């Protein structure tokens, strides 16, 4: 009888344990699409089997074992940061590119061409009032084009400032959530094996890594400590250290909770991209545009000052003016001249076309760093086009690498050490073999590209 009752007890016990297993499996399936969730694996502990002492053996449910691996999580977070940065850059620079459309008939490039063409027309009939008015109209279009482009860049810069504020707010919200979860871990040690809390924590960390470059260290209490750029604490245990964004001299600054400037520590994630765009990329474009506006206005004004107007007088008011203390491109305007005040004639030959002809020669002579005005503007447009293409390629590349890291996380989690060691050898051989072949194909492609001109 003892044997039968032991067997029944065993069977009943085991059924209870396997019932719990089904609960775990059901929970895994329910959470298959939950962000940050890692499979939980049931473990079984054998019970002592000593019939003489009434210990009937069987199995008991052990603790749940998470398949999560922090190394894999960090690899995914690193790629999230890169993707966050690349996506932000591609989006923002994509707004700048249309401002420098080199094919547009109403852009800066064509308005500069039209301006010099109007002088060419004037040189044919130097005292024709309509031709003189055309010069003033064309000059206004150049000024308007430069102002519009400068205003477009300024608008993107303003958008970046507000996006920066929004991203910093999101970072602080996620940091607050992480600190709250850490508080749960510290107040109740059982919470560290709660798959739901674990999923929330890792989802928050992954979202945070898209926004900025973070380092994560898990401490002995199970809490996750987060630093920005590996240096500035954002979350330590249950304490959050909020960061803030400032704007000084049109430059973004990020301050830690003590008010220290930590801008230079942030290079990745959306925030890293926003800082780089606001502090480096856009000011660079603006400087080039200002150089063009200032050089153009100075060259035109300088040439006109050497001639005389329709009445034989030296000009008293320059055609263009701009605010030297501010941005030339955004402040360039055409002064209120009448058509007869355009100095089309040379000083020594009033009524002639000498100065109008000299003006048309400005169009084809090097004016800025060895380039004509339209060449210089074209180079700027090309640079922006290349920057956008580079950012888009980076975005695609980062997306690929994130997909790869996520797939690796899925594949590698929860395997045995022996399986993993054997698999690592296979991976090593596979990567070596494919790497060599791709190297051969790459060399062949380069050889072919040398033989065929790329159009």
């Amino acid at each position, binding site marked *: 009888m003892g044997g039968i009752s032991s067997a029944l007890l065993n069977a009943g016990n085991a059924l209870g344990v396997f019932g719990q297993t089904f609960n775990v499996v059901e929970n895994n399936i329910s959470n298959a699409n939950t962000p940050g969730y890692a499979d939980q694996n049931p473990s079984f502990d054998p019970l002592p089997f000593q019939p003489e002492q009434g210990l009937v053996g069987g199995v008991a449910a052990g603790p749940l074992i998470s398949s999560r691996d922090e190394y894999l999580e960090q690899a995914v977070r690193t790629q999230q940061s890169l993707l966050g940065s690349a996506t932000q850059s591609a989006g923002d620079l994509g707004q700048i590119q249309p401002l420098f459309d080199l094919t547009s008939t109403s852009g800066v490039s064509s308005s500069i061409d039209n301006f010099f063409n109007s002088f060419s027309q004037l040189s044919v009939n130097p005292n024709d009032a309509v031709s003189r008015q055309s010069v003033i109209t064309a000059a206004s279009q150049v000024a308007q084009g430069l102002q519009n482009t400068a205003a477009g860049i300024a608008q993107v810069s303003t958008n970046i400032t507000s996006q920066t504020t929004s991203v910093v707010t999101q970072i602080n919200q996620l940091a607050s959530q992480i600190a709250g979860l850490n508080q749960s871990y510290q107040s109740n040690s059982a919470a560290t094996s709660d798959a739901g809390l674990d999923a929330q924590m890792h989802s928050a960390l992954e979202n945070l890594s898209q926004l900025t470059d973070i380092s994560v260290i898990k401490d002995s209490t199970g809490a996750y400590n987060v630093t920005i750029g590996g240096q500035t604490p954002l979350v330590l245990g249950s304490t959050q250290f909020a960061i803030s964004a400032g704007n000084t001299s049109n430059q973004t600054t990020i301050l830690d909770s003590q008010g220290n400037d930590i801008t230079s520590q942030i290079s990745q994630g959306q925030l890293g991209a926003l800082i780089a765009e606001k502090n480096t990329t856009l000011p660079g474009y603006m400087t080039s545009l200002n150089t063009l506006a200032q050089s153009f206005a100075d060259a035109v004004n300088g040439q006109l000052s050497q001639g005389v107007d329709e009445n034989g007088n030296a000009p008293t008011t320059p055609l263009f003016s701009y605010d030297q203390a501010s941005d030339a491109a955004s402040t360039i305007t055409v002064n209120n001249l009448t058509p007869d005040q355009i100095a089309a004639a040379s000083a020594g030959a009033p009524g002639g076309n000498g100065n109008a002809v000299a003006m048309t020669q400005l169009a084809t002579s090097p004016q800025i760093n060895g380039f004509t005005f339209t060449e210089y503007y074209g180079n700027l447009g090309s640079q922006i086009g290349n920057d956008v293409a580079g950012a888009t390629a980076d975005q695609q590349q980062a997306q690929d690498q994130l997909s790869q890291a996520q*797939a690796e996380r899925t594949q590698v989690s929860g395997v045995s050490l022996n399986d993993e060691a054997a698999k690592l050898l296979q991976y090593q051989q596979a990567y070596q073999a494919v790497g060599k072949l791709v190297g051969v194909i790459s060399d062949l492609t380069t050889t072919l590209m040398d033989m065929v001109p790329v159009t």
Partner: protein
Amino acid sequence: MRSNLNLARTRIGQLRGALLSPSPEEIERCLPGLVEAAACLGLIQQQLGLEAPDPGLGRELNALKNDLTAVNKLIEHGAEFYRGWAKLLGSATSGYTPTGDAAPISAAGTMSIRG
């Protein structure tokens, strides 16, 4: 010429797809295709010696070069990932060498038979 190049690009595209979710089997499955891609490029090289290049071939080659750059990055990234993973497992199983590097993985008693 163009069909050979298209085939090479298809094979590279398949490898790129495989590398997004890599396993040794998946990568090895791409190897015959890559050999085929290399042979196609070799044929194009021979044809270029005999006839004028197909218009637009240069652009296609440039696109192939971009694909190869992406594939190379994925290979480097994947290999780097598994090097890190091996270091982690090595230090977990055998500790560290006297110079502070992770020891090689010790998986005593493991036998892997395939085929």
